[in-house]
């Protein structure tokens, strides 16, 4: 019995390790590339022949690509929009999972349908809407757009809320809690994992989006986020020579996100502090 357990465990370890290698190799490749001094975009070996820090230095010294500035922009946008988006997503999910009101079913269906139109097609329209309210080329505009998008991305969260026993709400209602109290003191504390998940997703968005952000920012390079910045590095002329700097930039983008992921994993792992109690 114990032996069998051990064997299956060994198999699991092997599979996991293999998979982890597959997943991590490309990442390691980026990291190594960011320290590579020779070659260009393409080399057919894994470990660089010469290591250098120049690629990183270049990012912070080259005035065409004010990476430091971009990084701060992105950080600001990410933090603000993650906070607001999470709030909005969770609030929407809660409303649609727990509150009873007239157009609820319709709203759910409508929201589902609204997400279906190819997003890039509305970019120009959104640009002009932002322009009409005088916000183009600003970080606020970016935040606004990301946060507005959060209002319809509540499905996972709603699914999660649906699994919290309704009797907890009922019990709290009788205890004199308003719906708002229930949301605050019962639902939210029980939803840590999903909140963390939502925050992470919302936080990573601005680091990754290069199409939309580029449309909004136009030629205002000072307000670029790292993603637009990096993406604009990859033109026909510059792709090859800037590739290692690009990799260095990628590594720098990944760092805050990874730190956040690791830091917040605990909440995921904890899950709900304890299972539902009877029923």
């Amino acid at each position, binding site marked *: 019995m114990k032996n069998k357990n051990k064997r299956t465990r060994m198999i699991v370890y092997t599979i996991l390790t293999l998979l982890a290698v597959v997943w991590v190799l490309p990442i390691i490749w980026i990291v190594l590339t960011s320290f590579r001094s020779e070659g260009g975009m393409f080399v057919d070996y894994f470990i660089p022949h010469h290591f250098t820090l120049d690629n990183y230095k270049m990012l912070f010294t080259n005035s065409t690509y004010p990476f430091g500035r971009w990084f701060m922009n992105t950080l600001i946008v990410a933090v603000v929009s993650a906070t607001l988006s999470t709030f909005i997503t969770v609030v929407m999910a809660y409303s649609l999972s727990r509150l009873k009101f007239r157009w609820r079913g319709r709203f759910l269906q409508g929201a589902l349908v609204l997400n279906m139109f190819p997003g890039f097609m509305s970019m120009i329209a959104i640009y002009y809407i932002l322009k009409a309210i005088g916000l183009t080329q600003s970080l606020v505009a970016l935040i606004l757009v990301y946060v507005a998008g959060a209002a319809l991305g509540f499905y996972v969260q709603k699914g999660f809320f649906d699994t919290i026993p309704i009797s907890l709400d009922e019990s709290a209602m009788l205890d004199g809690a308003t719906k708002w109290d229930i949301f605050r003191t019962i639902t939210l504390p029980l939803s840590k994992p999903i909140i963390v998940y939502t925050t992470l997703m919302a936080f990573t968005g601005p680091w990754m989006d290069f199409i939309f952000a580029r449309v909004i920012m*136009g*030629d205002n390079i000072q307000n670029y986020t790292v993603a637009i910045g990096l993406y604009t590095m990859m033109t026909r002329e510059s792709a090859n020579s800037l590739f290692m700097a690009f990799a260095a930039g990628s590594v720098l983008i990944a760092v805050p996100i990874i730190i956040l992921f690791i830091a917040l994993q605990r909440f995921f792992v904890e899950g709900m502090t304890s299972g539902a109690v009877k029923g």
Partner: protein
Amino acid sequence: NNSASADDKAVKLWVDNKAYKPIVKQFTKDTGIKVDFKIGQSADAQADLKKDPSAAADVFMFPHDQLGQMVQAGLIYQNTKYEKSIKKDQTDSAVQGASYKGKMYGYPYGVETQVLYYNKEKLSADDIKSWASLTEKGKLTTNFAGDGANYKYVPLFMSNGDYLYGENGEKVKGTNFNNDKGMQVLKWIAQQKDNNGVIQSTDAASLNKMSNGKADAYLSGPWDKVTLKKEMGDKLGVAKYPTVNFGDGDKQMKTFLGVKLFGVNAQTDKALNAMKLANYLSSNKVQKQVFDKLGYVPSSKSVQASGDVQKDDVAAAVTEMAKPENSVIMPKLPQMVTFWGPSDALINDAYKGKLTSDTEMQSKLDKLVKQSTKSEK
């Protein structure tokens, strides 16, 4: 908003390299016209302009093949003011590239063609005279089967005497690839699959192959010079394209000629200043400065002929390729967009051996011509 005398307002400029900064400073010093200097990609100029012309630059860089659409959408100001001097100073191809349907719009500041890079240690100057000897003696790395095959190999049709949108590239119904000559070219492309001297590779990988000696020759533009030079040093040779034989004798292999232009935004409220700046940036003096700093091959006749340019092997090769017998000006008709995709597909499929019979090749050529030459509604 059409008063062109708002001198106090800065002219917004999009260029793709900050090396222009001191040049623009000089301009401001000379003329007193303030310039709002912004870095942007010349290739994106059209899209950015289209998105919101009023927020776009007053003067911007762009490749000449976007001119057709820009004119069509009314995005670009006609160049009436400096037309004459440009016609005088610039090469004919450059003038042609800056004009559309008989009117001039752009301010040319450079030309761009592909050239042949090769490894001097492996290949002699004779070896590279023809495609056959080149691929027999050495290995050519190129991209028949992927993105960009159209840019590199569509000119083969013109090498064999076909036309793309007519002689001057402005005639919608002027494509005739679906004749026998076209078939010859397509078959030739298909044969390359079995040519051991041709290695299929993406551009990025090609550079690497050149560097590590796995390939000896590579067709590409001046932008790859820096990388190749760095990796290969003195081994790097640059030359014009070889000849090719499609079945009835050697013919010069051609390349697309691109003209680099400055343009003035049609919506600008400081037209005169903007034009002045555009003209300044395309002047001989600036072309020379830019060539020195960035290696952009000039479009001005006099600068091209100057010693510095001719001493530079890439620039020399480009000016050579830019001659009408070695290149075709890339058409700028808006219809080009309907040509690029299908032609890429056709060359890819031909190379990969997907077109198995002559009739299939013929019908594919017919389709390409038909699709890309639909007239305007």
